[in-house]
């Protein structure tokens, strides 16, 4: 469920970075203001605990596969949402940097998907409401299970939306969502069960840990209102970023709207640059019409047949035709070779 850099656009990545950065600084402030400094090493070691915990698997009955702990929910239960969000953010950062799980640009998306939903939605609005101040084993299990599922479903939905807005993957919205939600229902159940198993153990062995955790943190009074206001704020940020994108590059938003309506027609923002460049190229080149002309024509004809606005037809497809593609491949291979050579030359210089 980790988003990868390769699948997101800079705008989506940037917007999610902004949202996540806001949340991190808000949580940092909260942790600094509200908590005693015993929490500092506790958060750090709990982050490491999540890594270690992911090494221990349990067998899922009747399937032959195994599951492990995800993290966001158990951290919220032990640390409270603010400290838990910082902790899960740090876990994901280390994963992005060392295991290249996700990516640096996608880090904002990942922290949001795997941190925000369990810590600020599933935990306060579901787990707290079910388990309450006087937890019993049954309440803990029910609470963990339901909030585990809810957290992961929301996260999966968010992955789908981010992918959709980025427009790199061709997956249609419905197909993608039908693929992601059932998978994450299963993962959510596993996450809920794993969390419940650990929390029930702690509840039996050292119940005071759960009690002191929920008392020491200001999670009891996080209201639905705060969450909704936060959501609105994020919507405004994201919407603002998107509309800025839309106004500077009208293709982007139109494209994503066309995408949801199932239409095939799409244009690339970079086409303009290509057009401009190929225009310059035509003027300066010795053999301006060099290229594999016939296939290129066929190509445009096919496209015109498919498209409704025929006026746009030829204009919108100059980016990829056979001539430029072949030269792209030749040139690409050459530049790669050049890059490798530069690498080798620099290496030799060193010794």
């Amino acid at each position: 469920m980790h988003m990868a850099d390769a699948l997101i656009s800079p705008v989506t990545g940037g917007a999610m970075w902004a949202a996540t950065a806001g949340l991190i600084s808000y949580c940092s402030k909260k942790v600094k203001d509200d908590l005693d400094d015993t929490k500092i090493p506790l958060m750090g070691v709990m982050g490491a605990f999540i890594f270690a915990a992911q090494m221990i698997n349990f067998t899922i009955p009747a399937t032959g596969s195994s599951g492990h702990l995800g993290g966001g929910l158990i951290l919220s239960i032990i640390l409270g949402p603010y400290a838990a969000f910082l902790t899960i953010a740090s876990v994901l950062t280390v994963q992005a940097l060392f295991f290249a799980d996700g990516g640096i640009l996608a880090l904002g998306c990942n922290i949001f998907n795997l941190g925000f939903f369990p810590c600020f939605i599933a935990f306060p609005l579901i787990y707290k409401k079910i388990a309450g101040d006087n937890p019993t084993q049954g309440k803990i299990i029910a609470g963990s299970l339901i909030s585990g599922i809810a957290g992961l479903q929301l996260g999966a939905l968010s992955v789908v939306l981010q992918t959709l807005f980025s427009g790199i993957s061709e997956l249609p919205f419905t197909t993608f969502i039908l693929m992601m939600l059932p998978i994450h229902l299963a993962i959510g159940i596993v996450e809920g069960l794993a969390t419940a198993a650990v929390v029930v153990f702690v509840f039996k062995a050292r119940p005071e840990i759960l009690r002191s955790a929920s008392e020491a943190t200001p999670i009891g009074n996080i209201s639905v209102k705060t969450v909704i206001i936060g959501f609105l704020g994020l919507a405004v940020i994201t919407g603002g970023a998107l509309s800025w994108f839309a106004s500077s590059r009208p293709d982007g938003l139109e494209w994503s709207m066309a995408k949801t309506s199932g239409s095939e027609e799409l244009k690339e923002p970079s086409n303009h640059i290509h057009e401009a460049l190929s225009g310059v190229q035509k003027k300066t080149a010795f053999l301006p019409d060099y290229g594999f002309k016939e296939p290129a024509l066929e190509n445009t004809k096919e496209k015109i047949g498919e498209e409704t606005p025929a006026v746009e037809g030829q204009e919108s497809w100059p980016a990829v035709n056979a001539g430029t593609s072949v030269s792209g491949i030749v040139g690409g291979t050459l530049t790669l070779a050049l890059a490798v050579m530069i690498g080798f030359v620099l290496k030799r210089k060193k010794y």
Partner: protein
Amino acid sequence: MAKLDSQLFHIDALDELASGNSVFHNLDPRAKLVTTLVFIGTVVSFGKYEVSALIPFAIYPLVLISVGGLPFFYLAERVLLVAPFAFFIGILNPFFDQTIMVHLGSVSLSGGWISFFSIMLRFLLTVGSALVLIALTGFHAVCMGLEKLGVPRPFVVQLLFLYRYLFVLIDEASRMIRAKSLRTFHSRGTKIRTFGSMLGHLLLRTLDRAQRIHLAMCCRGFDGHVRLICPLKIGWKETIFVLGWVLLFFSMRFYHISEHLGLMIMRNIV
């Protein structure tokens, strides 16, 4: 078991590379962080059917690897280890986008394949540059750079703590797994009750450890601030590094090197 241990070894190895000595190793971490961010941003800003224009960008990780004396194949292996996610999402593109966009003689390529190649290329470039960043800089220095760039201090301290205790707790969990494996005659399954009790114990130990660490830190006068012995500074080397690369990235973004080179070659051949 071997798998776990080797994974641990891997985290270590990546950070150890950072103790090397080269022009790029010695740069201020902020310079490398900012440049890598600009690099990733530029790479992902291309349209989704772009393949050849992405190739010149390979120069950034390649130059850093060769000047920094990093082991190329080791890093390549790390990148390929995490390839499956991008691969499986990307490989669906050819099925959904079957518009023929390119003809190469008798072979025709659909838009889906082109965007798939584009995804894989982006993946290699972005993941590669992130790993190179850590291998050239080291985690501690990256954290310090982050703090100087304005990331909230509690978060930076959190990252440092997490990294410090990662190894300790991974060791502890491996010992637990080994012990359980020996006592169950290497049976592979774990019931959820056993799982709960194992993890629960690990959690209790973790909490106790956190308390001990906190007391020890208080005794040593910790005030929530991690101090550095060697101060960070941005000098002319850093400025040249950042400006040089950023200029190169932007010119490669707007000037299509591969295509122009290819056209030139084709013209001369024909």
